């Protein structure tokens, strides 16, 4: 009998809790809305049946590990494990505390994309491997999963966990020939005025709720630069200049650390595609330092360490 991913997750979690190898397991439980799951902390073996796994387990669970003191089992997909690696390097959690239950990932579904593509209220979403059916009261629409993936998942280069103690299923095939930066290059190629206008439009409805920052596992500063008032670096209103500053400066703080997990875009209530900023910096780090974040816990990131070979052609 083939054990499904969910069954394996529950089996492993129950065992870890029974053996007291961990104090808690962090994963997802079924949400109260279609296409939505809620991060959950399971402390008793009897409760592992709460744990689910499907294409709506998008929020990066590494955010829930920051500065915790317990022994933790965490269900992690490719991008999550890269952020866990970064957390370890940055001393936000120790490797010894964690038992990483790795889940090879075939991509998460973009809830907003699906909702915008149907003309009815979705009451249920059924997944049948690569096919998805969105059901309303008296209408339904079918999709290929590939059409409705989150944008970061569509260009994912590391779907398989890079750091793990257990793997619940066979590694998935990494897509060949993905161009991660086609849209970034398009923006790079824009004329100055067009570029300014592009970002003006992108951020026009930002309400400064900071959901993007809070969902990001990298954003753990006790006082974020936007909250600082002595000195006040950035204004707190919805002023366009302050808003733009928040977004691009946050992206800079994530440079060389961001794994493009997509949580920022996922959680934004206004549907802002702010990955435009982080992916530009990701591309720059790759091209300048041949660096991808969180692939192992031995190497220090480029913005953390000096190498004589670091590019300096721009310094006159």
């Amino acid at each position: 009998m083939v054990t499904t991913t969910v069954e394996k997750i529950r089996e492993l979690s129950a065992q870890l809790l029974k053996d007291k190898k961990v104090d808690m397991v962090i994963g997802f439980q079924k949400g109260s809305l279609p296409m939505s799951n809620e991060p959950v902390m399971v402390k008793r073996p009897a409760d592992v049946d709460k744990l689910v796994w499907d294409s709506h387990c998008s929020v990066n669970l590494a955010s829930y590990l920051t500065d915790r003191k317990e022994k933790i089992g965490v269900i992690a997909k490719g991008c999550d494990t890269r952020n866990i690696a970064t957390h370890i390097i940055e001393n936000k959690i120790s490797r010894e505390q964690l038992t990483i239950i790795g889940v090879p990932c075939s991509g998460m579904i973009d809830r907003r994309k699906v909702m915008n593509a149907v003309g009815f209220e979705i009451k249920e979403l059924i997944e049948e491997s690569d096919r998805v059916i969105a059901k309303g009261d008296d209408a339904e629409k079918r999709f290929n999963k590939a059409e409705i993936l989150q944008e970061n998942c569509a260009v994912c280069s590391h779907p398989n966990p890079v750091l793990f103690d257990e793997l619940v299923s066979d590694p998935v095939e990494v897509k060949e020939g993905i161009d991660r930066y086609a849209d970034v290059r398009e923006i790079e190629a824009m004329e100055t005025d067009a570029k300014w206008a592009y970002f003006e439009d992108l951020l026009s409805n930002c309400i400064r709720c900071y959901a993007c920052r809070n969902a990001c596992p990298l954003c753990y500063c006790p006082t974020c630069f936007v909250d600082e008032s002595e000195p006040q670096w950035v204004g707190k209103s919805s002023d366009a200049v302050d808003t733009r500053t928040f977004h691009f400066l946050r992206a800079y703080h994530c440079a060389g650390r961001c794994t493009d997990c997509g949580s920022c875009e996922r959680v934004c209530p206004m549907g802002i595609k702010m990955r435009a900023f982080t992916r530009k910096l990701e591309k720059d780090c790759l091209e300048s330092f041949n660096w991808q974040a969180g692939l192992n816990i031995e190497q220090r990131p480029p913005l953390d360490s000096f190498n004589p070979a670091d590019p300096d052609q721009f310094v006159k």
Partner: protein
Amino acid sequence: MGIEKDRLHFSWISSAEATKFVDVVNKVTASVKALGPAKRFIKAG
């Protein structure tokens, strides 16, 4: 981002390189003046 390239310059100048300092300051000043007053990233009143 949409700010003119010639407003941002990087240079490495030692305190012993006075001539270079003068040179760079003049070049940067001329480069930025040629663009005129900055209109972007200035907060409205």
